[in-house]
């Protein structure tokens, strides 16, 4: 189960970020932000084959998360982007997305 879920725009700012309220929110924000160093490095890695480029899942940045979770989140994100009233680049404000994220988070009473 996740403790913090974030969707980051390609310009590296957060479109959506939520963590389990009881935890130290700021610390998670810093963790997500610093893991972007690794994301940036992985994305810019040269010599990748075309197949690799189509692979959206980057793998582990820190020893956490699992693949299924990514796919579920990505599908929901795609739904948000398909909303004609959503302006790409704006922070995500969607009840459906919130619901999916809540389902993936650690249940806290």
């Amino acid at each position, binding site marked *: 189960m996740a403790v913090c879920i974030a969707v980051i725009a390609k*310009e*590296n*700012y*957060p479109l959506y970020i939520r963590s389990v309220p009881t935890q130290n929110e700021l610390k998670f924000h810093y963790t997500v932000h*610093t893991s*972007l160093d*690794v994301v940036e490095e992985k994305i810019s890695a040269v010599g990748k084959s075309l197949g690799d480029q189509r692979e959206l899942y980057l793998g582990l940045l820190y020893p956490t998360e699992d693949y299924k979770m990514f796919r579920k989140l990505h599908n929901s994100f795609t739904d948000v982007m398909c909303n004609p009233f959503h302006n790409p680049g704006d922070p995500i404000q969607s009840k459906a997305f919130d619901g999916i994220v809540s389902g993936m988070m650690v249940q806290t009473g």
Partner: protein
Amino acid sequence: MAGSQWELPPELCCRPMAFVALTGLDVVYNAVHRAIWDAFCANRRADRVPISFKVLPGDHEYPKCRTKRTSYEWYIPKGILKTGWMNKHLNLVPALVVLFYELDWDDPQWKEKQSECATKVEIVRTSLQGRNTKVAVVLIQKKTPLPPGEDLVASERAATLCNACDLSGKSLFVLPHTDHLVGYIIRLENAFYEHAQTYYYTEIRRVKSHKEFLNKTTHQLLFVRHQFKIAFFSELKQDTQNALKYYRTAYSLVHELRAHETNMLEIKTMAGFINYKICRLCFQHNTPLDAIAQFRKHIDLCKKKIGSAELAFEHAAWMSKQFQSFGELFDEAIKLGLTAIQTQNPGFYYQQAACYSQDRKQQAQQLCQAGATYPSPEPLDTQSGGLDFYGQRPWRQGHQSIDPPDAEKEKTGILALQIKERDVPHSELIIALLSNAVAQFKKYKCPRMKSHLMVQMGEEYYHAKDYTKALKLLDYVMCDYRTERWWGLLTAILTTALRCAYLMASVKDYIIYCMELLGRASTLKEEQKLRIEKNLIKVLTNEVPDAEPECDSSSVSAAKSLWSDRMALAGSNELTIEVQDYIPFIQCKAKFQSPSFHVDQPIQLQVFLRADCPHPVSFNKLSVSLSNQEYNQWCVVESSGQESMSLLPGKTKRFNFSFVAKTEDVGKKIEVRLLLTVAGLGQPDHAAQYHVRLCSDTTQSECYWRSLFVQIISRVPKISVQLSHQPPALNNEMYCISVTIQSQEEGVAKDVKLTAGLKPGQDANLGQTTHVTLDGSKVCDDTAPALLPDVPLGDLKPGEKLEWCVYVKCVSTGPRVFLFHVAYSIDTTVEGRQIVCKCHKDETVTIETVVPFEVSVKFVSTKFEPLDRVAVDIPFLLMTDILSSSPWPLLLASSSLQLTGESASECFCLRCPPLTNSNSTVATGQYLISWRRYSSSADSPLIQTTVTLPHVILESVPLYIHADVPSFGRVRESLSVRYHIENRTALVQEVEMAVEPSDAFMFSGLKQVRLRILPGSEQQMLYNYYPLMAGYQTLPQLNISLPRCPTTNTHTLRRFLPQRIFVKPQGRQVDDASIAAA
């Protein structure tokens, strides 16, 4: 115990090397001995054997060897490892003692010296009693030794010396101090190294032999100790593979020890030491993954072994040290060539070390209450001044049972440790570790990690009350978070920065951070914003702001007095804040109504302001600075008197400015820079004491204040420019383009100037092949320019029309773009201001240039037969065909022929003079045609077109023959033909001539003749032909041959002769002329 209690001992961290003691060397007064010692010490590079040498006096007392234990039965060990043990074997107990002694084989006092040497050896041996240390003797000799076996005296004396000193032959060395000292020394030290290896080998065997006496219940500590010692001796022996093996065994044994609160520190200390050794060796063996795996295992095993809860900070300190040392080992390995990666670099270990140091600080703050008095007598003192065993408590050394021997002593000891911990500069330690980590993450391209650590450093400085440094760091990273748009993190950093600014009473910083925290980038809650805004207004009205939450009370009271001092000094209260780097609480956007303006239109600029803060904001001046400072005066709004302008939260306010551009700025692409000044910020009902000006240089900020450009372009011309011409242009002609300029202005267009010609920026060659002139009366030459600039045309009254002809001569064909630029100035009024506007109108036209006609030339004989070569001195014809390719009629003046769309052919009869040289081709010259357009006026100049005629191949003929033949004959009327045969050579030519019979003619004359023709002379032959048939008839064929010139025969000569003649039918009347001809 100082803060350095957690440092690893240097003897653990160094690379163990065999210890060899050198005695008998007087390095102070004896130059030879000094040179020998220097040779041992200097240049100890990696290729030399790893030995640490020490010079000791001959009678040096080595550490006493305790009597060997024969049984471990009643022995209970007091600890794992003695604190002095490693140092003892590194620096005190040598593997080999070398005695240097000056003695030559042929020394006159050999006997005495031999016994003296033996005594010295004996002294060393006695001091080393009980140890396995080897002794060796080096004889320093003045003479170069003879090759082995040749010096019988030497071998005999060597044997007696060995005997006297009780040495094996392998332990006696000779060192001649001659030229090759370093070479000898290297051979010596290699031999020493072998002895040392043997020594450490026996030591390992000795320690191993203890094992059989040990039992698992009472001697657990010894298992660890012995494995550690074996491993350490293996390292001294440079057997790192085995050393690693033994350390690994020692490591697992240390975790098998029964751990309880009293010995936890000892176990962790030793586990830390052994782990350090293992990791170090793994890096040395270039197996960094093994090192990392070992370290992870170590941390997993140890992180829960906190020990005494009252000394929890000790565990954090120890953990921090573990990470730090591993980070240092990792870093060291990288310096020696290991490559690290972004996700696995020393930075993570330093960061973790810092993290544990932060834990340590927190625990220390919780556990070490202020006010406790330091216990007396000092519980941390020991008799020896230090500890006997690593990781033990000074007040109960050697105690190994579960419960402390004395509860009271335990209590005072813990209290003493807690009080000592209070004095530890935690923040300093944390900051040092963080800055190490920052350096690493910078190296491994983790900018965000670096920023995060710098934030932590800033926060640590804040905790350490070094607010200046804290602000410097926070300020440095703030813009990273701002550009990355992580507002949540930015807000957190700003909040800390605001606290620093408050505690320092730094007015400007305080205002800046307040403004940004009020702005849209801040994720603060509404009530927080309200509080901050209240404070901001207080500062602006020269009041002391309320304290920021979460500041400790003593700092707050200090800050309060600082603020009141600052507020009392209400002197210069002008503050200018450059907001391009911040996201202020007032957003500003500006926009020009159009990307460009004509100079006779007022430029319209709109400035939008919007406040993001919760309360209305007032200000009293808004000004805009443009790149041309003269416009600034038109872009100012100022509140009149007491009334100030205000911005309502979330509402956008628009200001319109308009100004007239300067005529000097016309035509230039002008960047209009926007510099916004909002002065006198405050709240509507408060009189602001501080005048804050927000400035933004929009050229430097991309994100939040967009930069603006406007182009001032010239006034729209009210003038028409018309071109009329008859395309295409003909090559070389004076092509006339007529320009009609008509003014539609209401005033007088002054200084009208025409620039006409080839449009710049085309192919460079066109510039040289195009000539423009206004003078159409004669053909211009090459000096005429391609572009006529600024031809003054005078003034143009309203409605007036001007017509000019521009002549263009195009030397080459192809398309060209011509530009006609008419510029003038006119007085006009914009918004009541009189300005002189410069206007211009451009017309361009593309004109194709074509060749007017094509001239083809051919050579024909006088019989109009095409010639491929021309005979010398024989007339031939040159025919020129001129084919017009012009769509317009042409006048060819030179031949007076007036043909349109047809070929004009001219014939020239030429004769080639005999050539002196043998050149077979000859240039026939040029053909000049003078022409002009038929439609052009009669006085327009003629154009000379030169056609170069083709070369012709010449040949000389030895014999030339031509005939005088009447133009026609008549049936049955005599027709006389005279053949002239000329000899063109310098030789007498013999010619054979024969006339072949013909059906169409009868003839009289010599049918076959042979004659001689002298050089340069001519022979004539007369024949009378009598035609028998009418029509075109072939004349009887004349066969000629030159026996001397076989190449010249009938065939080659025939082209000179007429072949046919027209024979008219017989008339009724006999013509007198024909009779006369017959």
